[in-house]
């Protein structure tokens, strides 16, 4: 059962050669079910120069995010389509600078995540000096937000992020911003909301394109979180106006 894999290749040590799609033929009966297994087999047996990121092989680290057959997912959770007639296209995450083969430069993504200050900020000390308590109902509000593995699939699938990566934070960072706004233990909710909405570019460049929700490998809903964050901001602004 031979399947064709067309994989994007580009080597900075050979800059005169333009990026191209290299074909590999693999026997699927001798290979694991996921795309990452195929990549490992190709690297081990055919071409050791094939470069990609990977770590946990179980969909929790977010390292192996790449574009497989047009969709951004993590390679370790994407099963190989066994149809031998269609080739499988593997390319790096779209509209990102390629460092080599399937490895892209995610420093901007990580800096944007850092800029929303993704840690607990409180003004008071914990009761009895032990831990900040939270009821089960409040903890339930974080479900669907804390599972994000920062794979960058959603952010690199957003056309608004493609055109403005420096200004727009992207669905992953905004999902995390909402996660910290939603956390009942965090006391800087207003400051966080204001930091994300002070300029039109960070949050309001989202045009509800919903590519992020469609592509998330963990089935999260960043578009919904962004929508709720916009609603929170707009309702809070209204309250200020009516008081004055």
């Amino acid at each position, binding site marked *: 059962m031979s399947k064709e894999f067309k994989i994007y290749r580009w080597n*900075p040590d*050979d*800059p*005169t050669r333009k*990026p191209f799609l290299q074909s590999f033929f693999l026997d699927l009966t001798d290979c694991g079910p996921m795309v990452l297994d195929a990549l490992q087999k190709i690297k081990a047996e055919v071409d050791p*120069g094939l470069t990609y990121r990977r770590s946990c092989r179980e969909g929790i680290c977010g390292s192996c995010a790449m574009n497989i057959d047009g969709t951004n997912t993590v390679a370790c959770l994407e099963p190989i389509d066994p149809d031998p007639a269609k080739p499988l296209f593997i390319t790096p995450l779209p509209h990102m*600078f*390629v*460092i080599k083969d399937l490895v892209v430069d995610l*420093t901007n993504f990580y800096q944007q995540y850092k800029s929303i200050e993704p840690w607990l900020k409180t003004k008071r000390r914990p009761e009895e000096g032990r831990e900040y308590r939270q009821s089960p109902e409040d903890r339930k509000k974080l479900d669907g937000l804390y599972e994000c593995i920062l794979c960058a699939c959603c952010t690199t699938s957003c056309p608004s992020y493609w055109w403005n990566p420096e200004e727009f934070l992207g669905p992953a960072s905004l999902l995390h911003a909402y996660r910290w706004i939603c956390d009942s233990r965090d006391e800087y909710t207003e400051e966080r909301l204001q930091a994300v909405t002070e300029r039109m570019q960070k949050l309001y460049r989202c045009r509800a394109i919903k590519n992020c929700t469609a592509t998330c490998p963990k089935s999260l809903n960043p578009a919904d979180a962004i929508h709720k964050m916009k609603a929170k901001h707009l309702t809070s602004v209204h309250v200020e106006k009516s008081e004055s």
Partner: protein
Amino acid sequence: MAPPRLSGMQKQVLSLYRGFLRAARLKSADDRKQIEAVVSAEFRRNSNQVDRKNFVYIEYLLNRGKKQLDQLKSPGVVGLSSFSVGGGQR
């Protein structure tokens, strides 16, 4: 002598070069000379060897240069050097 209008990419390359020279100014005199020598040699070599239309590679070099500049700006760093390992295999 200089072209009448610089393209966006050319401006980026020049501003990166300026950034390196400004970072070098903040180091000690010996380190400064060594950094300036390495950086200007690298930029000159790339300007001669790299094809002007090879945008993919130029953007890759710009990105790499920005990261190296960030590292150079930190106070502990005293210089940069490089060495090449063997030849290309493929």
